[in-house]
């Protein structure tokens, strides 16, 4: 069989923020680093992040510090987070942000000439370092332009289909170049998975074609465990009209800058339902909420800035009960701030330039004068590969994971802004520890028979009669079914039904046929992505069935309340020796006293 071979000490799979940051760190440690990305460099999903990077720099409010950030993250995650990861994240995020500035990032500034920070849902103080509403672009470009001078070998438009092992430890990765379908083998002493999310398992999503859960699936099939897979973040504000843009993200920054949610009766419905654990932190009146968004330290946050899981469910309720907007969403109004400030239109354009642009071009709507229509969109997966908090290594020796494809820091719900900080904090840690591991390891042995099996599997769709299954059709049907049966509101029977359907989808995947050749063939690529999408969908459904309560991104109509019992466990899945997915509960380790005291002090 025909393939090229590359050897590296550390191979990083995925070149978004986490992957780039891991590669930079590993390279700095003096080992040889390969960086593989499915798209061109600089196009990864990080580019879509809008609102900002959460870090307790305390530039805008000097009451902020790592302890408050930690407590906010745990409260937002409803206390099933990996507390050690939440601690490291809160402590290290400020230094990672300052480092970006050293590497050329240009953040918006305070009057004193420091990095400006903005309000965001669930963060007690203004905490998000940002660049208008294109923070992700700034982050990825900064890492990219720094990274290309660090001696990292980049393999663009290259997709990995399987990880390879030598006994227990990981020793390589096998994939293909999208350009011409050539096969490629990477031999490596350590591998970092940094592949991002899996939003493409759902119909309405803010994710690009890349979000097919590749890392989740690669890790799972190589023996790593996945945890918290039932926790999916449905971002409350995606575009709903016109149909072709449904799901595209509308940044939480709109609400951070004072935007309000209104139903078709003109009611600001978020005031009607404020969860108990946020009551003391939420504004009593519209006026107080407005003052908060404008930096009044004595004001409390408006209810639009409650956590994403809660806001998304409130929007769904309004729509269900007939109070939705024309096209099945609710209204998000930023234009109303003209009531309080002169030159509001200019202000909005300066603070939210890409939102202004996006609605103007795609929706034919001027957000400085008209309300936007918004509704929930699948945005992020809290769950993912289980890693050691300090090193980011999975239970497979030599295999690391960082960013969205890893799990732990976010618990049941992620706060906005915590993902950009997550990827740079844990990207760095993963790179550092992978390099360290590689320095003490040798290249593992590759089993040629295994390579031949993988190749046979991967090219099989070309050998089936073209009248067989179409990959795009299966993908569409999977997305529709996951949206309906394992979406924002779930029940036992619907998830069981979905589980049954997944078995059928697996069978149909075995019959997928592809026309044409291996040169840049989207039909073929989609058929290979499906393997990953089906794997992660199964993880979501099985974990969702086991967690018989509602918490964060997992809401069950048949168990609408939180349960104390489930608040003490993570749901863990792994691949059994029979090849079937195994699911179990595992107790969350007891939080040490010093962190308990931090939580208490910040109630």
């Amino acid at each position, binding site marked *: 069989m025909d393939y090229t071979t590359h050897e590296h000490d550390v191979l990083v799979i995925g070149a978004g923020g986490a992957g780039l940051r891991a590669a930079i760190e590993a390279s700095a440690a003096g080992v040889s680093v390969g960086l593989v990305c499915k*798209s061109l460099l600089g196009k990864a999903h990080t580019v879509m992040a809008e609102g900002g990077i959460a870090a307790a720099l305390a530039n805008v409010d000097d009451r902020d510090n790592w302890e408050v950030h930690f407590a906010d993250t745990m409260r937002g995650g409803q206390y099933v987070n990996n507390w050690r990861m939440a601690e490291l994240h809160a402590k290290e995020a400020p230094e990672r942000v300052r480092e970006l500035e*050293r590497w*050329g990032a240009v953040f918006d500034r305070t009057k004193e000439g420091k990095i400006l920070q903005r309000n965001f849902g669930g963060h007690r103080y203004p905490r998000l370092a940002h660049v208008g509403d294109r923070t992700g*672009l700034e982050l990825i470009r900064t890492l990219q332009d720094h990274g290309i001078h660090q001696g990292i070998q980049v393999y663009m438009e290259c997709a990995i289909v399987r990880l390879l092992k030598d006994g227990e430890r990981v020793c390589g990765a096998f994939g293909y170049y999208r350009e011409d379908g050539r096969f490629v083998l990477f031999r490596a002493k350590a591998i970092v998975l940094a592949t991002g999310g899996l939003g493409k398992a759902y119909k309405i999503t803010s994710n*690009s074609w890349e979000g097919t859960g590749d890392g989740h699936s690669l890790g799972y099939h190589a023996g790593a465990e996945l945890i918290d897979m039932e926790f999916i973040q449905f971002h409350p504000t995606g575009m709903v009209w016109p149909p072709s843009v449904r799901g*595209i993200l509308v940044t939480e920054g709109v609400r951070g800058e004072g935007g309000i949610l209104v139903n078709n009766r003109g009611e600001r419905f978020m005031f009607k339902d404020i969860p108990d654990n946020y009551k003391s932190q939420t504004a009593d009146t519209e006026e107080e909420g407005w003052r908060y968004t404008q930096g009044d330290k004595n004001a409390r946050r408006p209810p639009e800035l409650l956590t994403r899981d809660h806001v998304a469910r409130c929007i769904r309720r309004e729509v269900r009960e007939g109070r939705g907007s024309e096209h099945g969403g609710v209204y998000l109004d930023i234009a109303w701030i003209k009531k309080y400030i002169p030159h509001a239109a200019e202000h909005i354009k300066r603070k939210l330039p890409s939102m202004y642009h996006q609605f103007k071009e795609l929706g*034919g709507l001027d957000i400085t004068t008209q309300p936007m229509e918004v509704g929930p969109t699948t945005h992020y997966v809290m769950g993912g590969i289980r890693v050691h908090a300090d090193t980011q290594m999975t239970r497979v020796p030599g295999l690391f994971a960082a960013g969205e494809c890893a799990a732990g820091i976010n618990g049941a719900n992620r706060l906005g802004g915590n993902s950009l900080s997550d990827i740079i904090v844990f990207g760095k840690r993963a790179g550092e520890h992978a390099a360290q591991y590689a320095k003490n390891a040798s290249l593992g042995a590759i089993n040629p028979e295994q390579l031949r099996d993988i190749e046979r599997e991967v090219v099989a769709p070309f050998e089936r009669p073209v009248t067989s299954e179409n990959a795009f059709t299966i993908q569409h049907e999977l997305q529709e079914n996951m949206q309906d049966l394992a979406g924002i509101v779930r029940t036992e029977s619907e998830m069981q039904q979905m589980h049954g359907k997944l078995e059928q989808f697996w069978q149909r995947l075995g019959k997928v046929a592809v026309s044409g050749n291996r040169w840049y063939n989207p*039909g073929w690529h989609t058929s290979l992505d499906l393997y990953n999408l089906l794997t992660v969908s199964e993880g979501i459904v099985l974990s969702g069935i086991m967690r018989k309560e509602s918490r964060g991104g997992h809401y069950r109509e048949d168990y609408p309340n939180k349960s104390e019992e489930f608040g003490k466990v993570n749901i863990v899945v792994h691949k059994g020796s029979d090849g079937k997915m195994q699911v179990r509960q595992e107790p969350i380790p007891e939080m040490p006293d010093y962190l308990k005291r931090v939580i208490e002090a910040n109630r």
Partner: protein
Amino acid sequence: MGQATFHIWRGDKNGGSFQEYHAEITTGMVVLDAVHQIQATQAPDLACRWNCKAGKCGSCSAEINGKPRLMCMTRMETIPTDQPITLQPMKAFPKMKDLVTDVSWNYKVNKMIPPLKPRKPDFPDGTWHMTQEEADRIQEFRKCIECFLCQNTCHVLRDHDAKEQPMFGGPRFMIRVASLDMHPLDTEDRLKLVKDDLNIGLCNITKCCTEVCPEHIRITDNGIIPLKERVVDEFYDPVMWIVNKFRGGRKEASTRTPLPMV
């Protein structure tokens, strides 16, 4: 809303031709949606790049009815559908397959540009003082999504294919240099690179790049012209030449020379 006919270029580096496809058009649809529909129903091996579908990643650049555009930001309502719509890959880059071109040359040029070399931090915590006004000047350039439409449109690259000898860096990398050169913290001197390696002199300010920029960056006025002026000041201005001699080197002078505001 009815049907639209597309003539899409299909082929690879060895050649190809336009093939006809039909797509159902619905409200708000963009050209990329039509391409996806054709992929899913008629031509599953039709190659096109895309990622964000919201004008933020710059992947889906192509020529729509001959105009360089992002397919995800071109609404079908803005294109006449009474005649076939042509879709073809960017002309300035080698063809790979269908709408996908080989843009790797751009990544090589980018690598030639030395990264930021910040001055010593202003504060003990390793941070700097920077005003919003200072940030604003280069944030315009940093909005660039690297769609390479400006590179594709630039006649120096498109018609004269100046990618090797002489090599013209192209508008994208002129504004990248400008964003570093005007960076309030930077101390590196890139003017020689701009003059001798990226050959800024080859640009004759036709502003075609500015016209196609989906981010509306004023590439020529705010990026290329100020850079050209600095090159002239540094290398061709007799007064500055004497001043530089006197000061003992260009580099120091360049960090002190205030930038022209355009």
